[in-house]
């Protein structure tokens, strides 16, 4: 069944996907810059990085992202979910501008406009590709319908 229009709950799930991923990445970045250099000769250092506070918070946010992402993928196409959730980049940039009072260059404003237009573009289309049922599946569905009558 194609969902041309999403419910408010489904928009909320897409919002969670948008927010949790960039916030999680930011926490990971903060945690990894505090770590000593990691080389391929000592890959186990990557495992110990997981228990540091910033990395742990980043992982918690990314788990929230993953649960929302899986839910979104169960009712929408991958090629719909990915552009539709790109607004997270815009949210982080606006957060940096209005709460952290960082300067946003003209290029960044152009990037924000392009992402917003791209998200608006894809969000107006259908969220799921309608698949034609194969004859075998159609027969099975008919049998089930007859049995439930």
């Amino acid at each position, binding site marked *: 069944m194609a969902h041309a229009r999403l419910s408010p*709950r*489904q928009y909320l799930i897409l919002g969670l996907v948008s927010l949790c991923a*960039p916030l999680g*990445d*930011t926490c*990971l*970045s903060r945690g*990894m*810059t*505090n*770590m000593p*250099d*990691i080389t391929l000769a000592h890959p186990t250092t*990557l495992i110990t*990085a997981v228990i540091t506070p910033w990395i742990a918070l980043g992982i918690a946010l*990314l788990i929230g992202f993953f649960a929302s992402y*899986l*839910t979104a*993928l*169960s*009712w929408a*196409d*991958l*090629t*719909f979910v*990915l*552009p539709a959730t*790109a607004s997270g*980049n815009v949210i982080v*940039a606006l957060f940096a501008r209005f709460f952290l009072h960082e300067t946003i*260059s003209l*290029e*960044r404003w*152009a*990037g*924000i*406009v*392009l*992402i*917003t*237009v*791209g*998200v608006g*573009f*894809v969000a*107006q*289309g*259908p969220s799921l*590709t309608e*698949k034609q049922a194969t004859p075998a599946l159609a027969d099975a569905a008919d049998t089930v319908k007859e049995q439930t009558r």
Partner: protein
Amino acid sequence: MTIPSPAPQPGFWAATTMIAAIVLASTAGEVLTAAAMKSIGNLDEIRARCGLKGAIRAVLSCPLFFAGVSFLTLAFFALLFALNHMNLSLVAPASASLTLVTNAIAGKIFLKENVDRRRWAAAVLVCIGVYLLAH
């Protein structure tokens, strides 16, 4: 707390290899995960019918899901490795924007999704937008 001085940035080919590893692993992971979720069905409906445990059981009993998670784990450690050598302002936008394009191609080829002109345009606009945000 003292913030360590920034390490020297890697060369072009080392940076390209690190970003390519993230992009390839996350594309494989996302396509496999999307295929798994499509085969399972609408999680909201499963949760309404069988509860949260039923939904979790449905996800955990799908082998494709674990294949996807394996590649996503690989992408995660590739990201951690890259973040240790490069700035987030380069790694995150570069890998995110390239992954959008590779996923659109992989979605069309492997998932048979209807990637119409609207979706291609959105992928390209978001890709350029993410690139501009990083500068």
